[in-house]
């Protein structure tokens, strides 16, 4: 027995909060960007923490965004970056839009998020400098570690 105290809300009124992106691209907004365009955004808004070309973060917890491909191999010390470890490129859009830049999150336009995502993917050698990244192309980016994950065998049924 429970009350029914939820208020109905129109889908349009949820939009300001609905920032989830699915690995199939569900939720990606209109807009576009390339690595070339993204570089300036990165230098202006990301580099202070994540380092030049995303390789050596200047803030410890920020982590490297670039490099490490091949380091997942047995007995190696893994360097887990967007390039070496992330299975879906959509996660990049989702995360950068919701949580970056650190001091002023949710401040980038869709074009800017597409562009800076393209830049990070390009730094990792995954796409070309002029590849257009948008709602259509982003989910189609094949990440190097796409098949790197297996389900945990002991989850509750």
């Amino acid at each position, binding site marked *: 027995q429970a009350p029914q105290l939820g208020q109905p809300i129109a*889908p349009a009124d949820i939009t300001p909060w609905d920032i989830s992106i699915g690995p199939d691209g569900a939720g990606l907004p209109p807009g576009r960007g390339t690595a070339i365009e993204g570089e300036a955004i990165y230098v202006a808004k990301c580099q202070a923490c994540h380092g030049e070309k995303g390789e050596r973060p200047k803030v410890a917890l920020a982590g490297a965004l670039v490099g490490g491909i091949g380091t*997942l191999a047995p007995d190696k010390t*893994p360097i887990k970056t*967007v390039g070496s470890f992330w299975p879906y490129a959509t996660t990049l859009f989702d995360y950068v839009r919701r949580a970056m830049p650190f001091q002023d999150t949710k401040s980038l336009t869709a074009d800017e998020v597409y562009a800076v995502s393209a830049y990070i993917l390009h730094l990792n050698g995954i796409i070309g400098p002029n590849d257009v990244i948008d709602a259509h192309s982003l989910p189609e980016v094949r990440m190097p570690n796409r098949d790197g*994950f297996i389900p945990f065998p002991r*989850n509750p049924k």
Partner: protein
Amino acid sequence: LVVGATAAGLSCGSAEPLAVQPWMKVPGTGFAGYGQPSPFESKVVKVFPPPPNPPGVGSSRTPLHMLEGMITPSGLHFERSHSGVPEIDPDQHRLVIHGLVKRPLVFTLEALSRYPMQSRIAFIECGGNSLALNAPQAQPLNVAAIHGLLGCSEWTGVRLSTLLDEAGIEPEARWVIAEGADAAAMSRSIPLTKAMDDALLCLYQNGERVRPSNGYPLRLLLPGFEGNMNVKWLRRLKLTAGPAMTKDETSKYTILLKDEKAWQFVFPIEVKSVITRPSPGLALRDPGFYEISGLAWSGNGSIRQVDVSADGGRSWAPAALQGPILPKAPVRFRTAWQWNGGPAVLQSRATDDTGMVQPTRAQFAAERGFRGVYHYNAIASWRIDEMGEVSNVYA
């Protein structure tokens, strides 16, 4: 500190004459609206790294070696934040439920407060707790630094299933994406089965409203699941057919195995225990009686047994378990021990009511190696030397 700090009171001779202290003669302080610990306990605090990290990014750790019992005082409950602790105005806070539901709904806190409530005592452990024990050499760290991302509260709130029933679940829905109202908008995908089973939308922690560092004004509790999934400052629940593959369920909180593969969606905290006393920093004074005391917990159920060894795992004896023994809640275990003054290695090994036994470090490594970072739950060891000093070792 509980043990070993000063020489008072443990010598053999007759005691000093009892002194009439000033506080026995003049009135003490008046009442306070909200009480605090004694100023003499000012060292009992959470520990967190100093700057230069951005403030509030990372974690602060519960000083387990200074605590007793099962409950963590809310002021000392560990916190893991990704963009600091938001100062949320509860009147402005909303919870929205949408996605694959028949009726998208929004709830004020006042509305949530009108629902039937449920309380349960449950631990929350960060999936990254004890990760220091993945290091090849044992580090000179204490129990807070190694295992301090663990807390236990009595949580009270509304069953998530109640609200999902009200919204009406579409048949294709299998997952719920939970999201926080912090600047990092922490986001995790949760199986709908868990959401419908025992997930709780918590308004209260240890009787009072949830603390800001633990998710005020609303925290998702997924009893037994890794801490990060218990999304704090909860603002949104979106029902979906598949997981969102958020940063914190791909880049983080996945367990890289010995080959190139990583386990993903490692939900339960598997059976685990740690001795909190004696532990590093709490040196033994003299040979003689010591109570070995610690915590055991399992995200899969209740603790059935804890065995304790003082010889690095060669021999074991069952410890006493302090009731109430509750599912997905820590259990305080205790065992009497006579220290003969020689070197010793203390270990505890928990077994839960699914029959799962806490693995040895070797068994743990054999299954997954030490590259996994998260969900380290192997048997931990404290070495005691002839001086009574306690240190973290691999044994």
